[in-house]
C-alpha cells in the first residue's frame, strides 16, 4: 500500500486500506515520544504552516510538535474571525501564505468546506484540522489508533457516540472511519442534536443513554456547546446532564466492565461526563491526546516526506 493523496481533507474520501496505512504509520512513530532526543530528520527543510481560524490549543500544539519532531519548520498563523469580519479575506490570506512556498498548510476553520476551498486554490498539500461541523480527520485517526491499541482489532466492535452529533465534525469523521473498518456505530442524544437522515451514514440511532451504552465496547462522548441551549435545542444544561451526562452509576448499571470512555476534548466536567468517569479507570482521554502527536506525524510524513522515508 502506497500513499498517493496530496491532501488529507476528509475521512469520507478515504478507503479502508488508506485509513489502516495512516493508523499503522502513526503506530510506528509513537516510540519517538519516548526517546531522549525527540527528533528525526524526515521533514528537514520542509515548511509547515498551521493556519488556525478558530481558537485551539490541543490540535494546534499537537500539529506543531509533530512537525518539529520531524524536523520541519513550523509556523503558526492564528487569525480570528473570517472574511465577514473586517480585514483580509480567507482566500487572500491563504494566497499570501502560499506565496511563501510552504509544503503543507494545516487549516482549522469554522466554515465547512474551508479545507476543500484551500485544496482547490493553493498549490501545496492541505491537512484539514477541523472545518465547521464537517470533518476532523486527524481526530478520527487518533481515536482509531487508541481503540486499536486497547482492543487489538476493529472486527465486531461497537462504538456509541453520545451528545451533540449535529454540530460535531468529530462525530462525522469518526462515523466514516469506523464504518469503513467494520465497526458498528450507534449515535445517541436528544433528537434535536441528531442530524437528519444520519442513518444513511450507516449508523444506528438511540434517544436513550442507557440503551445506547449497553453492550458497547467504546463510549465516545462529545462536548456540549453552551449555545445549544439559547438556540432552543435543549431546555437546560441541568436537564441535559441529568439525562445525557455519563456518571459512574450509569456506567456500572448499563455498560460493560471493559468499556472504554473517550472524549475529543475539551471536557465539560459535570455536563456530559462526571469527573470520576473522566479520571477513572475506563477513561483513555489523555491517551487520545498523546496519540494525536503520532497521528499527525504520520499524516505529515505521508504528505510531505520523500518516498524513501515512507514506511
Amino acid at each position: 500500500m502506497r500513499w498517493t493523496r496530496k491532501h488529507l481533507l476528509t475521512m469520507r474520501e478515504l478507503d479502508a486500506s488508506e485509513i489502516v496505512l495512516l493508523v499503522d504509520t502513526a503506530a510506528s512513530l509513537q516510540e519517538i515520544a519516548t526517546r531522549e532526543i525527540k527528533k528525526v530528520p524526515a521533514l528537514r527543510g520542509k515548511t509547515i504552516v498551521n493556519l488556525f481560524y478558530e481558537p485551539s490549543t490541543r490540535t494546534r500544539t499537537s500539529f506543531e510538535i509533530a512537525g518539529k519532531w520531524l524536523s520541519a519548520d513550523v509556523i503558526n498563523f492564528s487569525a480570528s474571525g473570517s472574511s465577514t469580519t473586517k480585514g483580509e479575506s480567507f482566500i487572500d490570506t491563504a494566497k499570501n501564505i502560499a506565496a511563501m512556498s510552504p509544503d503543507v498548510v494545516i487549516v482549522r476553520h469554522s466554515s465547512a468546506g474551508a479545507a476543500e476551498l484551500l485544496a482547490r486554490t493553493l498549490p501545496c498539500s492541505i491537512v484539514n484540522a477541523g472545518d465547521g461541523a464537517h470533518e476532523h480527520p486527524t481526530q478520527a485517526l487518533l481515536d482509531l489508533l487508541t481503540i486499536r491499541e486497547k482492543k487489538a482489532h476493529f472486527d465486531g466492535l461497537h462504538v456509541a457516540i453520545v451528545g451533540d452529533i449535529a454540530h460535531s465534525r468529530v462525530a462525522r469523521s469518526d462515523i466514516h472511519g469506523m464504518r469503513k473498518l467494520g465497526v458498528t456505530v450507534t449515535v445517541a442524544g436528544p433528537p434535536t442534536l441528531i442530524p437528519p437522515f444520519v442513518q444513511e451514514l450507516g449508523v444506528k440511532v438511540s434517544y436513550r443513554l442507557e440503551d445506547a451504552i449497553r453492550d458497547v465496547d467504546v463510549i465516545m462522548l462529545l462536548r456540549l456547546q453552551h449555545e445549544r441551549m439559547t438556540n432552543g435545542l435543549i431546555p437546560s444544561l441541568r436537564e441535559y446532564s441529568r439525562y445525557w451526562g455519563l456518571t459512574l452509576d450509569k456506567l456500572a448499571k448499563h455498560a460493560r466492565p471493559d468499556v472504554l470512555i473517550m472524549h475529543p476534548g475539551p471536557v465539560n466536567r459535570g455536563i456530559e461526563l462526571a469527573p470520576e468517569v473522566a479520571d477513572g479507570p475506563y477513561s483513555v482521554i489523555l491517551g487520545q491526546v498523546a496519540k494525536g502527536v503520532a497521528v499527525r506525524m504520520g499524516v505529515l510524513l505521508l504528505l510531505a516526506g520523500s518516498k524513501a522515508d515512507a514506511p
Partner: protein
Amino acid sequence: MSLVVTRGRVIDPANATDGVQDVLIADGKIERVGARLPVPAGAEVVDAAGKIVCPGFIDIHVHLREPGHEYKETVATGTRAAAAGGFTAVACMANTSPVNDNRSVTDYILAKAQDEGAARVHPIGAVTRGLLGEELAELAELAEAGCVAFSDDGKCVMNAGLYRHAMEYTLPFGVPVISHAEDTTLCHGYAMNEGVVSTQLGLPGAPAAAEEVMVARDILLAELTGAHVHIAHLSTAGAVRLVRDGKARGVRVTAEVTPHHLLLTEEAVRTFDANTKMAPPLRTKRDTEAVLEALADGTIDCIATDHAPHALAEKEGEFDHAAFGIVGLETAVALLLDRLVRPGLLPLATLVSRLSRDPARLLNLPGGSLAPGAPADVTILDPDREVTVDPARFRSKSRNTPFAGWTLTGGPWMTIVGGKVVRL
C-alpha cells in the same frame, strides 16, 4: 420602418400558432403573421429558416442591482444580459439600495431603462418600507408609478397580519403580491437544503418545510383576501402539492420555478462551490421531478431565472459566508432547450408558453403574444446552435453561475424589442 421575419417556425401559444410563417412588424408593433407575406418596400428582412420564432421571452424575477449595487449589475448590463439570453423584458426586484419602496426609485429605474435599457424593464415595488417587514410601503403610488407587482423578495414578510393587509390594500390595483416563501425561524443561518447531504457536509440546512409553511400561509391569506399571490422560485414537492390544491379550490395562487431548481439538486453542493448556494436552496431529485411535472401540467405557471448577480469576492470564499444566488439570464433558455426539450421532458411549445404568454398574463404585461397590435417583442431561437457556457463572455457584470463549462445545444439566436433587432 418595417421588419419581416421570414420562413421561421412560429410558436405563439397565445394565438395557438405553430407552423412556418412570416412575421410582419411595423412601427414597433406586430402587423401580421401569415404564410409567405409580401415584403413591403424598404422593409428589413430577417431570414429565420430553420429557426423558431416566439413571442418575446419575459423574466419576471430579476435583480438588476441598480440603484446601489452597481458593482454587481446595472440596468444597462442586466438588460444586455437579458437580450443576449433571449429575453425582451424583465421585472426587477425591489431589494436595491435605496429600496424600491417609493416612487422616486421606481422613476429612477424606469428612466435608466428608457435611456440605457436593451430590454423592457418592469419594476416590482417593495411590500414593506425598507424591506423591514414592519410597515407598508406607499403601494398605491408605487403602482401608479409603474410597479407591476409587489414583493420583499430576498426576505419573507414574516408578519402574517401585515401581509394580509398588503394583499387587501393592493386589490384595487390588480397586481399580484409575490412571496419569497421562507419561514426564517425554521431556517435561520442555513447554507443549503436540509437532508442527508447537509448532514454529511456539516452545513446548516433549510428544511423543505421552511418554504412550505409559508406557501401554505400565503395561499390561506390569498383565500381570505381574494388577492392574487404569486409564489417566487417554488422549489419543493410539498409546495407543488399546496399550490395544486390551492388552484383546485379556486384560490388566486400562481407560481414560478427557476432553471436551477429544475436542473440541479443538493448533490451539486458537495463541491463547496458557492455558485451552488441560493435561496431557496437546491433541493432533492424528488423535488426537481415534482417541479418539472408541475411546470408541464401548468400548476407552476412560468419560468423565472431569479437572476442574482454577485461579485467574485462575494462568491469565492467560505461557503457559509458566501452570498446567495446565481446569474441566470444568459444561460436559462439554452439550458432549458438542451436539458428539458431535447430529451423530451417538456414540449417546446410548453416551454415557449411558460417563458412568454404565461408570465405576461400573470403580471398583466404587454407582450407574450404575436397578435396584430401587440408590441413587436420577438425571441428567435436556433435549435441547433451548440455553445459551451463561458462566464467570461457574459454581458452581465457578474459571473456567478454553476453552469460554467456545460455544453448546450439550442439557444437564443436573435432578440427583437419594439420592432428593433437588439445588437449587442
